[in-house]
């Protein structure tokens, strides 16, 4: 048994995060009993906008839901085979297939809250990946028709944004709000919208601030734990509870861990990051890394799916500052929301892999990494977009990479044994062998 180099201790707010996540799925299931509304959409949809319909409007975001299904391999297989029987291809987004499957077999991944899959009242989606709007087009078909609105945000990289691009998105948002009033029969409250937008600013800002703290050696958080924390932002980034959790609980605690030198992994001696969603049913691969004293400090995915970033005076990457503006009306709120979201790191590579490579190389340097794991993710063409070019660029920058194929939500396409063999070889090439346990 080797002595740990650094002290470790569990996260205090861990259970809080767990409860917030459960409540989210509970609220969705029970929304109607509370006289509230249910909507479904993606983790990137502008959830701040339906917030203007009232405090009793609950959402179900498809990607985190699809991942929840993936954790339950029996349910996942049932869902996937149900979609295949419907004639849908196996290579489609596995979150999407898990979600459709839940509709088809009418099972909710949270049976303690609802045996049956709760049917949403309307669909509120955004669109940047080919599967975004089409996902819910099919979902609506399978549910026998649900009113759907989707906003196209694929106007190009942040650095190239112009007035007319923003107008295109804001215009759709205004149309969307009129549509929401029509399908729900409710009056829209701009004050609630403005509040939600401010919450979203806080959620995204503080999540990045938390990830920035992982620059420290030893890393206060490992990616496996980060998955359970960043998820809140993918559920409802514009919610008061999400913003408060990140700002008032998680950020201070992680800051304190850094100050006291608390490590996620006691024997940290090698730091890596990953890319794209992990194969959710096989997070034990991260435990396996610990045997080599290897910690994954995150990824562009965990940092930049919800977190927003900017280059600070000293040239390093830090949390994007919360806009110092007075929002007085709907249009201002929507414009601010649009500009804020267009800077999302995980939206940039949709236009060119170079934009992603640059960010990844920056992370590798600033977070002091020894290598990069690239998950060639058959389950997500959106985030695997350009991954081969990313690999070439990272290699060129002199950073060792370990690509491996898998699938975030369909375990039939991930081979744990083979992947572990790959890890052995990669660690060997970094000159690391297993620490005697």
């Amino acid at each position, binding site marked *: 048994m080797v002595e740990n180099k650094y002290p470790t201790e569990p996260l205090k707010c861990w259970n809080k995060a767990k409860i917030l996540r459960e409540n989210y799925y509970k609220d969705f299931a029970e929304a109607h009993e509370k006289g509230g509304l249910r909507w479904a959409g993606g983790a990137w949809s502008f959830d701040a906008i339906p917030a203007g319909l009232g405090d009793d409007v609950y959402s179900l975001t498809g990607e985190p839901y699809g991942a929840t299904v993936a954790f339950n391999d029996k349910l996942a297989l049932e869902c996937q085979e149900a979609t295949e029987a*419907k*004639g*849908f*291809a196996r*290579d*489609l*987004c596995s979150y999407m297939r898990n979600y459709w499957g839940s509709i088809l077999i009418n099972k909710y991944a949270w049976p303690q809250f609802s045996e049956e899959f709760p049917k949403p009242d309307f669909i509120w989606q955004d*669109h940047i*990946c*080919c*599967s975004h*709007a*089409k*996902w*819910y*087009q*099919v979902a*609506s*078909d399978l549910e026998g028709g649900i009113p*759907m*609105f*989707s*906003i*196209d945000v*694929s*106007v*190009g990289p942040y650095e190239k944004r*112009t007035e*007319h*691009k923003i*107008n*295109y998105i804001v*215009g*759709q948002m205004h*149309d969307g709000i009129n549509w929401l009033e029509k399908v729900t029969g409710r009056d829209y409250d701009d004050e609630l919208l403005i509040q939600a937008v401010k919450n979203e600013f806080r959620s995204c800002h503080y999540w990045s601030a938390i990830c920035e703290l992982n620059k420290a050696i030893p890393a206060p958080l490992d990616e496996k734990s980060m998955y359970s924390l960043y998820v809140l932002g993918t559920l409802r980034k514009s919610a008061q509870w999400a913003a408060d959790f990140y700002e008032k609980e998680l950020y201070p605690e992680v800051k304190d861990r850094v100050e006291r030198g608390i490590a996620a992994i006691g024997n940290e001696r090698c730091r890596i990051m990953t890319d794209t969603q992990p194969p959710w049913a096989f997070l034990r691969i991260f435990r396996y890394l610990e045997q080599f004293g290897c910690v994954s400090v995150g990824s562009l995915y965990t940092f930049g799916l919800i977190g927003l970033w900017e280059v600070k005076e000293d040239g390093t990457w830090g949390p994007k500052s919360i806009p110092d503006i007075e929002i007085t009306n709907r249009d201002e709120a929507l414009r601010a929301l649009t500009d804020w979201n267009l800077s999302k790191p995980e939206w940039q590579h*949709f*236009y*060119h*892999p*170079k934009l992603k490579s640059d960010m990844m190389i920056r992370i590798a340097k600033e977070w002091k990494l020894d290598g990069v794991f690239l998950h*060639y993710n*058959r389950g997500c*063409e*959106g985030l*695997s*977009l*350009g*991954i*081969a*070019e990313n690999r*070439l660029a990272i290699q060129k920058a002199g950073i060792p990479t370990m690509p491996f194929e898998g699938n975030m939500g369909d375990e039939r396409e991930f081979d744990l044994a083979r992947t572990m063999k790959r890890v052995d070889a990669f660690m060997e090439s970094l000159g690391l062998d297993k620490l005697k346990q």
Partner: protein
Amino acid sequence: MFEQFKEWYDNRHEYAKKWKERTGGKVLGTFCTYVPEEILYAADILPVRILGSHEPQDVSEPHIFAMFCPFCRDCLAQGLKGRYDYLDGITIAQSCLHIRQTFTSWDLHIPVDFRYYLPHPMHVQSPQAIPYLTEELKVFKKAIEEWTGKEISNDDLNRGIEIMNKNRRLLQQVYELRKKPNPPLTGLEAMLMVVSSQMTDKREHNKALEELLQKLPSRSLDESGERLMILGSEDDDTEFVAMVEDLGARIVIDEHCTGTRYFYEEVNTNGDALASIAERYVKRVPCPSKDWPERTRLDHIIKLAKEYDVQGVIVMQMKFCDPHELDTPAIKEALENDVGIPTIFLEFDVTVPIGQFKTRVEAFLEIIREEDLF
């Protein structure tokens, strides 16, 4: 009658090189049919659509993850192998993720003078789409002007529109003839005709079409067999089409972006030229990646199936092409259940196992014919 089109199709690269010598003009490679060629013709640029070669290749793997569609990898392979070395520039209009990677990898590894990524609305059913695209087209036009150093006047734009519209009109006239009980052309000939229009100077292509339309109406082929429709993403798999027609069937209509989706609608010039062009590309029969929230393509497919009196439909699914995979079940259901037209689903790769496909297509035809054996 179709030799000229086949000649163009087979020797596309030689044609483009000669065109350059002859005219001293620039040749621009285009990805996807959303590129507004009107503006390119207005600038006296020759747009050529970059397509694959249907050969096994081993060069794209380092650049595009193998889960992306074979077509986008085949196209990149053409670039990496230097077959498009005569291009002065490349441009893409935003549609699916797959072909986008061909453009970006091309941008990274194959030197060309001019590269342009044209943002293009995916939400074409939104009232915001036309004004937005109009603005993007202004920026695109400006970029072209800066590149060529020549201003594009309104007359130029109208000229570009007329060249494109004429080609669309003539192709439509030929397609009209395919509605006849025994069409005077085969599916293979039609494919060579439409695909070659995407790699030749439309003015020349128009001439060839006009000559064709002189002779074609009086041409009569052997009795056509089962009337089939092919549909899917891009498709210039001449080997497959020939195989199907060798089995005695006749392909009378297609719903491919290398076919009808490319030329079906004209630009209606009313007022501002760019706005008119934008309107055409927003309102055209969409690529499935832009066909939401409504599935407008379904009605179009059924309309075609009826107009062309189709007895069976071959759904040609490009492997890993998500936008189409997301529509296929709905299309099959609409055709089979709503209008009772049998369909067969085939998954295509860069090369197709022709033997295995032959058995399937034959069996499919046996479903339609052979009543008298029972």
